[in-house]
């Protein structure tokens, strides 16, 4: 893939900083609108990026989200430095959550974060190392018929 056709932008996410939370996903959404991406894809991306961003804000120390847009797909890569997830299978279960009462107070912690990301992406990969951090790969294809290999 040539670098010419790829738009790439990275965002720093600070853990615990609720004041700026959501900034990265809003910027991602604005970029996609400027590029003329289909509204339904923008909506899916917005939901997936916001959930992913909030996971970093709520649980990790810090993280980085990288957006890549090509004529074929939207790709988001997230890497955080944080506690990691001991049991990914359990974390992917709808309704499972380790959120604190404070987070629940803010409307998070319904245990829908990761399942929601998966639901809104065409391809979703997650890996984690306890004590180090979590990595997410989210792919959303622009042409629903062509599910090309990333």
């Amino acid at each position, binding site marked *: 893939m040539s670098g010419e056709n790829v738009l790439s932008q990275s965002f720093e996410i600070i853990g615990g900083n609720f004041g700026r939370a959501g900034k990265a996903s809003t910027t991602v*959404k604005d970029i996609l609108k400027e590029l*003329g*991406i289909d509204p339904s894809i*923008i909506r899916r991306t*917005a939901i997936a990026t916001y959930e992913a961003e909030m996971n970093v804000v709520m649980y990790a120390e810090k993280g980085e989200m990288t957006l890549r847009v090509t*004529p074929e797909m939207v790709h988001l890569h997230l890497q955080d430095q944080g506690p990691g997830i001991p049991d990914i299978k359990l974390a992917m279960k709808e309704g499972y959550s380790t959120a604190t009462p404070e987070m629940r107070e803010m409307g998070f912690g319904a245990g829908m974060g990761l399942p929601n990301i998966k639901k809104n992406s065409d391809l979703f990969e997650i890996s984690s190392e306890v004590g180090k951090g979590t990595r997410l790969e989210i792919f959303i294809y622009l042409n629903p018929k062509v599910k090309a290999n990333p």
Partner: protein
Amino acid sequence: MSLYSHSIQINTDRCAGRMRCMRTCPTQAIRVRSGKALMLEEKCIDCGECITACPNGAIVPLTNPFGELTKFRHTIAIPSPALYAQFGREILPDKILNGLKKIGFDDAFDQALTCGEVSFAIQEYIRDYKGPKPLISNTCPVIVRLIQVRYPDLVDLLIPIDNPREIAAREIKKKKARQYGLNEEDIGTFYLTPCPSKMISIKQPAEKGKSHLDGAIAISDIYGPLLSAMEAVANESYRKSLENICILGIGWAMVGGICRTLRLRNSLSVSGLTDIIKVFDDIERGKLRNIDYIEAYSCLQGCVGGSLTVENVYISYNKILKLIETLEFEKIKACPDIREVRRRYQEKYFFMEGKIEVRPLKPLDDDLTRAIAKRKQKDDLYETLPKIDCGACGSPTCLTFAEDVVKGEAKLADCVIKSAGQELSAAAPGRKSKIPLKGKEP
């Protein structure tokens, strides 16, 4: 012929290029080119902020002049409930409606009654609704335009129940045509409007070919004549006048009025574009899914805050609020018959006649590959700009300037700061700083 009509016009002769409108515009729809303000039609959502901002009165609302009534054989005024908030506490809707008949209208229709019916219809719709949430009110035309242009993915959340002003005009025309044996075209229905944006929903409805209203007259244009005319209107008993007020309908004048009088539990009321944009961003992220209904008005405090009203917005907001409290306290409920509303609801009486289409902003390029390239150019260019948003180039921010340059709508040389820096470094080659550091020469 432009694609979109607007309810705002810039009078170039009066424009002194002072850029206040450009800086105020919440959707960055104004540029200043060759010293004159220019509206980007695609981006404008008709909020009217620029009208108030212009120190020269060069931006005017395109409402109908009062004199246009003569074109019709029978004219009916349909006042926005915000009109009721413009006069002191002792002046109730009855008197205002009678006053309107003395200043040139053949009849005046209390739209608050229709508002009340529509409130019930909204309640019915929300109760049976199973789709994605939250539903968003469509009564403010600026909100509808904002969604069409900036939030096209939220367009399906706009509630498909029609506006009271449209339903009122449709029904009163039918009724009066029958009553007087006239054609519906001979009857002129005029909305008395608190803001210019209603004009646009009449001239270019978002969802159908033609509005049932024939025009909109600014509340500020009729205020003077109406105030004098009301002096000649005999006072009814206060209690009797109160009993004619529909508590559900009167609330439509202010933000939160619909939700409060309907007692909707999972609802949210927002006013002012800056806050609305924050709320819409949250909806796009998938938040607020537990909210059933959002009442949103472009003007602060709702329609009472419209730019074509006369009374101070807090005074008028308070008048409506106190009126609702009084009606609640006195247990006066002059509401439409809910069974009748339900019957008509089943007959689709309250539904919009068409679907609201999206109107997304033009992307940087129609071809995605080229759009990606342009976005990269824009980012690179933005990095070289001073980022102080001085506006001297004629674009509101450095970021919009970068976009304008990439789109070929502005020239890089228009950035005075950048040009000045280049001249200086050209005069003193080799020096990195843009400002000559006097006295520090080796």
